[in-house]
């Protein structure tokens, strides 16, 4: 919905818009949307009362940066209604799904901006599904002609909005797990091959005084150097391509340091596990056999 800030000159090149919702006074507490500043709506904000509006934090920050918007007025391009005074600021809400970006949102009392479609939000103390029957009865008492559409819990709506991204995430996760497993086997193979190739060297070192711990650290050191190089190259590659995944990420950025650190730690753990057996095998090498095989 397009809006204009009253008393502020209109820039014809800038189109200010925000999502616009007509809600009842109990909407915010029912939905658990915190009021950050000012107030929500009351029964007194009826169709005869002066127009009021509640905006979200994003709209407040974008339209009145560094200012307090409470008390200011906006003109919403809805039925040529008069300016509405901002009475409160609420937290941002993802209305459509978890992929929603932060966007300006405006709420006005439903009675001041009636709309032909209505959704009812009910907060229950009992199990939500068991309340469906009584909800239908209450609605029928209000308007017997009105059919209640689907009655679902908020969790179900969230789950439905998440279905596609969740499936995608599971798919990507499964492939990533498979890749990790293959990488683990690959690393094991490389380390086992490397130890086999270094039999002579290990035999000589043992003949010159290397103990099991020395041999273990020799093999582990090589694995860690390889791993560090691999992880570094992988991180650079990941930083370049994770932008592709941007649309599938909620609550984290594509370059999230914690995620990168976690994945690096997982890969290094896989590396250590993959290097463990070859390292142990190397410590059991008989130097005589290794030297004679030369």
């Amino acid at each position, binding site marked *: 919905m397009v809006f204009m800030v009253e008393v502020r000159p209109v820039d014809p090149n800038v189109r200010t818009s925000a999502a616009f919702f007509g809600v009842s006074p109990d909407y915010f507490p029912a939905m658990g949307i915190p009021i950050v500043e000012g107030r929500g709506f009351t029964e007194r904000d009826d169709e005869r009362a002066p127009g009021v509006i509640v905006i979200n934090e994003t709209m407040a920050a974008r339209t009145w940066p560094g200012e307090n918007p409470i008390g200011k007025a906006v003109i919403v391009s809805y039925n040529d209604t008069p300016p509405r005074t901002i009475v409160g600021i609420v937290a941002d809400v993802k209305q459509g799904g978890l992929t929603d970006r932060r966007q300006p949102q405006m709420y006005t009392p439903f009675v001041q901006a009636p709309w032909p479609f209505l959704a009812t939000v009910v907060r229950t103390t009992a199990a939500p599904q068991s309340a469906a029957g009584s909800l239908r009865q209450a609605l029928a008492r209000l308007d017997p002609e009105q059919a209640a559409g689907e009655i679902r819990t908020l969790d179900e709506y969230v789950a439905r909005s998440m279905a596609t991204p969740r499936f995608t995430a599971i798919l990507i996760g499964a492939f990533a797990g498979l890749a990790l497993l293959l990488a683990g086997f690959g690393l094991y193979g490389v380390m086992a091959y490397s130890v086999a190739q270094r039999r002579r060297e290990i035999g*000589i070192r043992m003949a010159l005084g290397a103990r099991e711990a020395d041999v273990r650290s020799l093999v582990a050191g090589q694995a860690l150097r390889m791993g560090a190089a691999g992880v570094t190259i992988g991180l650079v590659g990941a930083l370049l391509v994770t932008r592709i995944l941007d649309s599938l990420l909620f609550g984290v950025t594509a370059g999230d340091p914690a995620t990168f650190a976690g994945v690096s730690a997982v890969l290094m753990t896989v590396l250590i596990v993959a290097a463990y057996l070859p390292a142990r095998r190397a410590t059991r090498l008989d130097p005589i056999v290794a030297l004679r095989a030369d």
Partner: protein
Amino acid sequence: MLISLRNVEKSYPIGVGRVYVLRRVNLDIREGEFVSIMGPSGAGKSTVLHILGMHDSAWSGEYYFMDQPVHRLNPKQRSELHKKHIGFVFQSYHLLDNLTVYENLEIPLSYRNVSRKDRQSMVADILDRFQIVGKKDLYPNQLSGGQQQLVGVARAVIANPQVILADEPTGNLHTAQGKEIMELFRSLNDSGATIIQVTHSEVNASYGTRIIQLRDGWVVDEEAQPAVGSRAGDH
């Protein structure tokens, strides 16, 4: 006595029986001796040497090294004893190809809790003593066989061991290079090191003070060499 072997035997199972590599070997070696172990191929010479060097622990019998019962020591204790007192020279030099001469010489010290500073000083000393300072940054494949064995001997003595074990140290060298290495052994022996070498060469054996003959795993003969003044190279 520096080294004593008592009824040392080594064998491998083959089918239902066993094949013996060493049979009831008894051996005494005093400090300062230069002993040559000789015998035909398969006689067990290298096996004795690796037992003495504590690389091989799969044998039976008794082995006393500086009065310590090696046969009763665990692998860690044997390794410590080896590191403290024994240097080993291999026939095939066994230098590490991807390390420079300097780094090859540093390896035994790195396993002996020698500080980095002391290691640098000890490697510098040995390079100087063996006159291979100019080769310190070269890799083994850039050296001749004689030079590689020189590095091999330098590596064996860098930690100042009392005993040097050498497994056919001139086996892969030209006569002149072999002579140079044997002269080096003799000078090490003259400065107090006990040397035990395995050799097929009568000439090399003549550098020593005693020859032990092995055949089919048995010690068949022991003979003292002529007095030091008439040993090889003194003619």
